[in-house]
C-alpha cells in the first residue's frame, strides 16, 4: 500500500483495543454459562406456522423455544448480552414458475435454495452478500429437499425457496474465547430448522412430495469441567451455548414414512462416544440414530402444523 506523504500517518500495522474479560465478570451473573436443563433426549419446543406470507405460494415461520436461561434473562435482564439465542427463521416458496429463458429444458422441477442470515441474526453482523457458509447451507438444504420432492410431476418449471434467518443459533457460548471450538455447530441447528421450515412451506405450496422431511440434530458433548477425560455423551437437539465442548455433531433430513435420510451432515470425532453397555453401535451410528430421533420429534410438530393450516383452510370455506 502506498503511504500518504501529505499527512502524518499513524503507526503501521494498527493496534486493537484490549478486551477485558473481567468487565463482564462483575457479579451480574451474565457470565455464568447457560446450563442445559433438558434431559439428554428432550427436545426444545418448536413453533411452526404456515401460510403467513400471502404473496408467496407457500411460506412458513419457525421458532425454537428459548432455553431456560435465555427465558430467564429475557424476563429479568441482568446484562445486555443474552446468554444464548434461539433460532427464528422464515421460509418462502415461490413457484412453480417458468425457468429463466437461459435455462435448459428440464423434465423435472428445478429447485433453487437461498439461505440468508439477516445482518442482525448472529452476534457478529453478517454482510448483505451471501458468504460461503450461507451458500453451503443452501446446498445442504437443496439436497435435503430434493430427495423429498416428486420432481417429475412439475416439468419445465422452477421452485425458489428462500429462507431468512432472523435469529441464529450461537456456535459456542459467547463468553468463550472465539478459538475454543470454532467449528460451526450452530450452523447445524440452523440447517435442521431450515429443513423443517422449508418442508412446511413446500407442503403449503401444494408441491408433491414423498413425505414431510424434518431436520434433527444430535451431538456428542463432554460437559464435565473436570476435563475432557469424562466420556462424551449423546445429546439430542443441543444448544451449543449450553455446552463446554462439542466433539461431534450430526444433522439429518429425515422422512419418517419411508425411514429414509435425504440429507446427512456429520462432523467431528465420534469415536469416543460412551454408549450404554451392550450397545454395539459405533459412535457415528449412535449419532445418526440420535439425530433421526430428534427429527422424528420435529416431524410431529411439522405434521401438526401442516394439518392445522389445512383444517383451518377447509373450515373457512
Amino acid at each position: 500500500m502506498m503511504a500518504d506523504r501529505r499527512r502524518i500517518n499513524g503507526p503501521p500495522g494498527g493496534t486493537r483495543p484490549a478486551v477485558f474479560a473481567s468487565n463482564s465478570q462483575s457479579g451480574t451473573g451474565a457470565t455464568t454459562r447457560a446450563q442445559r436443563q433438558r434431559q439428554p433426549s428432550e427436545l426444545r419446543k418448536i413453533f411452526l406456522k404456515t401460510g403467513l406470507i400471502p404473496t408467496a405460494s407457500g411460506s412458513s415461520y419457525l421458532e425454537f423455544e428459548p432455553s431456560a436461561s435465555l427465558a430467564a434473562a429475557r424476563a429479568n435482564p441482568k446484562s445486555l448480552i443474552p446468554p444464548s439465542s434461539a433460532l427464528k427463521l422464515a421460509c418462502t416458496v415461490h413457484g412453480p414458475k417458468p425457468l429463466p429463458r437461459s435455462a435448459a429444458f428440464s423434465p423435472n422441477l428445478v429447485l433453487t435454495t437461498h439461505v440468508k442470515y439477516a445482518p442482525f441474526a448472529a452476534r457478529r453482523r453478517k454482510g448483505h452478500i451471501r458468504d460461503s457458509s450461507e451458500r453451503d447451507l443452501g446446498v445442504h438444504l437443496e439436497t435435503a429437499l430434493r430427495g423429498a420432492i416428486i420432481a417429475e410431476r412439475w416439468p419445465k418449471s422452477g421452485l425458489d425457496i428462500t429462507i431468512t434467518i432472523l435469529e441464529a443459533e450461537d456456535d459456542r457460548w459467547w463468553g468463550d474465547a472465539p478459538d475454543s471450538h470454532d467449528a460451526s455447530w450452530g450452523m447445524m441447528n440452523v440447517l435442521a430448522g431450515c429443513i423443517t421450515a422449508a418442508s412446511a412451506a413446500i407442503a403449503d405450496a401444494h408441491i408433491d412430495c414423498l413425505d414431510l422431511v424434518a431436520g434433527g440434530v444430535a451431538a456428542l458433548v463432554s460437559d464435565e469441567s473436570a476435563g475432557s477425560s469424562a466420556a462424551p455423551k449423546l445429546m439430542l437437539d443441543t444448544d451449543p451455548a449450553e455446552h463446554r465442548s462439542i466433539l461431534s455433531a450430526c444433522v439429518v433430513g429425515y422422512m419418517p414414512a419411508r425411514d429414509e435420510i435425504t440429507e446427512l451432515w456429520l462432523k467431528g470425532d465420534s469415536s469416543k462416544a460412551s454408549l450404554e453397555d451392550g450397545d454395539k453401535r459405533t459412535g457415528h451410528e449412535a449419532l445418526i440414530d440420535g439425530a433421526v430421533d430428534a427429527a422424528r420429534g420435529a416431524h410431529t410438530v411439522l405434521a401438526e402444523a401442516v394439518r392445522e393450516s389445512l383444517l383451518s383452510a377447509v373450515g373457512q370455506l
Partner: protein
Amino acid sequence: MSNQRQASSASQVPHLSPAELSYLYTSLSLPKSSIRPDGRSPTQFRPLTAETNILPGTNGSARVGFADGTQAIVGVKAEVEKTVLSNETVDARSEFGISEDRGEQEGSAAVGGHGSWVQMSIEIPGFRDDDALPVFLSEMMRESLVGAVGSAEASDMTGGLKGRLVINKRWHWRLYIDVLLLSQPLSYPLPLLSLTTHLALLSTKLPKLKSQGEEDPFFDDDWAVAEYLYPRVSLSSAKHSARSPFVRPPVTLLVISVGENIIFDPNREEIAVADAVLAISITRDSEAGNLKLLSIRTVDPPSRLTQPGIPNSENVNMLGAVASTEDVAVLNPATGEEEVPGVWRPRRGGVKRSVIAEMVKTVLKKGGVGEEVLEGLEGVEVS
C-alpha cells in the same frame, strides 16, 4: 445455464438417455457382483498419475491426473500472521486474577489454533468461485482438515491441522490451499481434488523456526532444513509401538450406492444412476493406528434430475404393439419403488440408515478401502 449451475448436482447430469441409464443401473445393481462400465471392482479406484513438489514458488504442491485427462494442481502457501484478540483476552484475565484453571483452559484453546487460519479456494473451469459446487467442495474438504480438535491430545497433532499452525501465543501461520482443476470436470471432482490436496499437504514444508518462545518469530533461511507440516516421524512413536504410522492429512472418499451395491470412486456415468452419494472423510488415528471418521456429507445424486423413460404400455407410439402384460411393475427392494424393468425412473427419496452404516463400515474396516487409499498415497510421496 446459469440456473443449472446453481445446483451442485445439476452440473453433473450427463446426457444419457433413459435407456442407457436403465442399462447402467441394472448392471451396477446386480446382486453381489456389480458390473462397472470400465470393468473395475466395486472398491477399485481409477488409475491416476501423481507427482509432488512441482511448483517451486509454493510451500507444497501436487499434481494428480486421471486417465480420462482431468488434472488438478494444488499449491499450498503459508504466511506468518499475528494472532489477535484471543491472547489479549487471556492476558487480561490473568492480570485480573481470574481463576487459574479457567484462564488456562482458554489459553490452551487459543493454542489449539483457529479454523479460519486455513483458507481453501477451489477453481473449476466453467464455474464462478461463488457457485454452489466450488463452495460446497471447499467447505467439505476444509472442515475435515481443521476438524478433529477437542481431544486432550491436541498437542499430539491428531488429525487437526490448525494446532500445527501455531508458532507461539502471538504468531501463527496462515495456510492458503489453492486448488486448480485444469479442465472442466468429467466426473464429480471430489476424489481428484481431495487426493491432490492430500498430497500437496504431505509435501508442504515450513521454514525451520530459529526464535524461541514468545519472541517475534524468525526463520532459518536454509530451505533444506525446513520441516514438514505433517512430520514424517510421528511424535507419539516413542510412546507407542514402533509401527505407529505417520500423521496424515485427511482424505475424502466418494461412495455411491446402487441398488444394494456399494461402489467407490464412481465415474460420471455411474454417479448418474446412484441411489445415494456420500462423501466420507477419514484420517489415520495416530494413537491406535486405525482409521477415524472425520465427517460425512450427503451429495445430491444427479439421478434425481434425469429424464424418465416411458414404459411401452404408456407409450402412444407403441399402442397395441405390445401386450400390456409385459410391463409388469416389480418392487425394487433397495428403494421400495415400483418399477418396470428396463424403464428408467429418476431416483427419489433418501437413503436408509443401514446403507449409510454399510458404506462407512466398508471404508473404515481393517484392510478396507480407506486403508488401501491411504497406503496408495503413502507410496506416492516417496518420490
